[in-house]
């Protein structure tokens, strides 16, 4: 419970700042929208093709958008050294990371929920019958993206080539989560829809492992 209070305070700060500026949400929404529209132009989205390619393209777009959105989460703490002020506060350092992960998770999820109907319309997919299971896959996949992305945003924020470094670190490491998310999502658009337990298990394991590693070593990432 000692962690819950500072995480809640910092999460409220992150949400307040973002909903005041709307810098990350709007840019991410626009970016994913553009990618999905451009992808839809590359082939004729009949239902069969959409079932094959749509889920993979959706997760690729979300991955690219994630790397775009996650990058500023630590760099904007640098303009006035506010991370120093947070590190000076009498709180567990990992609570700073946890609040960032939760905030990024919320932002990505909001973006996904807005884009889901657009995705369904562009790729001619019926999402209503599988909505519950689709949201579950989105939550697990987005959590993976948020955990790893936030950790590597913290690492890369102190590097000189940080804009380039984050995608370079992030994309290979997220490959298992990307494959599992895309496969699980593709299964939902099969006839009949199926949610393969193996891919859900891979996502859950991925989330658990990276959350644990972040818990154990997170405070070192925040040091100079």
């Amino acid at each position, binding site marked *: 419970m000692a962690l819950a209070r500072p995480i809640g*305070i910092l999460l409220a*700060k992150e949400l307040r*700042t973002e909903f005041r500026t709307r810098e990350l949400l709007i840019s991410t929404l626009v970016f994913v929208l553009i990618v999905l529209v451009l992808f839809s132009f590359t082939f004729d989205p009949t239902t069969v093709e959409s079932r094959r390619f749509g889920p993979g393209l959706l997760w690729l777009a979300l991955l690219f958008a994630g790397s775009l959105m996650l990058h500023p989460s630590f760099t904007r703490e640098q303009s*006035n050294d506010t991370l120093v*002020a947070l590190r*000076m*506060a009498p709180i567990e350092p*990992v609570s700073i990371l946890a609040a960032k992960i939760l905030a990024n998770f919320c932002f990505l999820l909001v973006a996904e929920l807005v884009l889901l109907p657009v995705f369904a319309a562009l790729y001619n997919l019926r999402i209503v019958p599988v909505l519950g299971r689709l949201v579950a896959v989105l939550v697990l996949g987005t959590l993976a993206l948020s955990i790893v992305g936030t950790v590597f945003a913290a690492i890369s924020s102190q590097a000189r080539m940080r804009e380039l470094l984050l995608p370079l670190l992030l994309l290979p490491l997220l490959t298992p989560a990307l494959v599992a998310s895309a496969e699980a999502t593709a299964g939902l658009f099969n006839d009949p829809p199926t949610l393969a337990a193996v891919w859900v298990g891979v996502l859950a394991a991925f989330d658990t492992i990276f959350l644990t590693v972040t818990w154990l070593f997170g405070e070192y990432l925040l*040091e*100079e």
Partner: protein
Amino acid sequence: MQADSASNSPGGLGVEFVQFAKRYGARFALRNVSLSIAPGECVALVGPNGSGKTTLLKAAALLIRPTAGRVQFSNANSAGGQSFSSDMHRSQGLGALAPEASQHVAVSMTNGTDSAAVKRYIGLVSHSTLLYDDLTAEENLVLFARLYGLDSPDERALAALEPAGLAARSKDLVRNFSRGMRQRLAIARALLAGPKLLLLDEPSTGLDRAGQQWLGATLADLAAAGCTVLMSTHGAGEASAFVTRAIRLLAGSIAEDSAVSGDARGMLAAALAAHQEA
């Protein structure tokens, strides 16, 4: 709340650097610095740019890991060398540090709970403002009051804005503040939790004459209340009134200490002259 009881209790937090060294790449920012600052002392750090003043303050703030050595803290009411230290390798669970306790305790920078017990009593005014531009002045202070676990964070924030002359601008975003107003708010933020060790890195930067007078009066009040003050300065006015000791750093080492030479005022005057020449 514990932080409240701490802020109301008299006495400062002493700090001791034991063979402290910090290296960035191949360059040593500090070289085997051994320095003891007693609770309640008001110390000015002087020296040219790059002499290690900021690094020493960061070390006292538990923000950097030493390349060698350690930083120890001592309570105003502890006796016989009792201390708690930021040794990187030793640690005892202490939970929260009672300000009046006379006990042997140790903290580690790697142990969040232990270092948090010390950080609760340290205030920092840095080169940067440490403020969120997209929050209002009041929201910034309420955020940190909550993180420090202070009672009535909204009231505490407003009470801190009043002496800084920012009460009328409490609802304004910090991004709309002038440099001087930001600096006033940064100082108010550092004082919010009633620190027992106040670390200031050239705190008069950006302040106008009235602001410097307010800062000088505030620091004098804190010094009179027994708060330990460690401040880097170029020797300008806000320091000279209440400083009891001056230390001159040069290339990461202590070149002169008024505790030995006995002339803090002379050192500050010389530092100011050297800064104006440069």
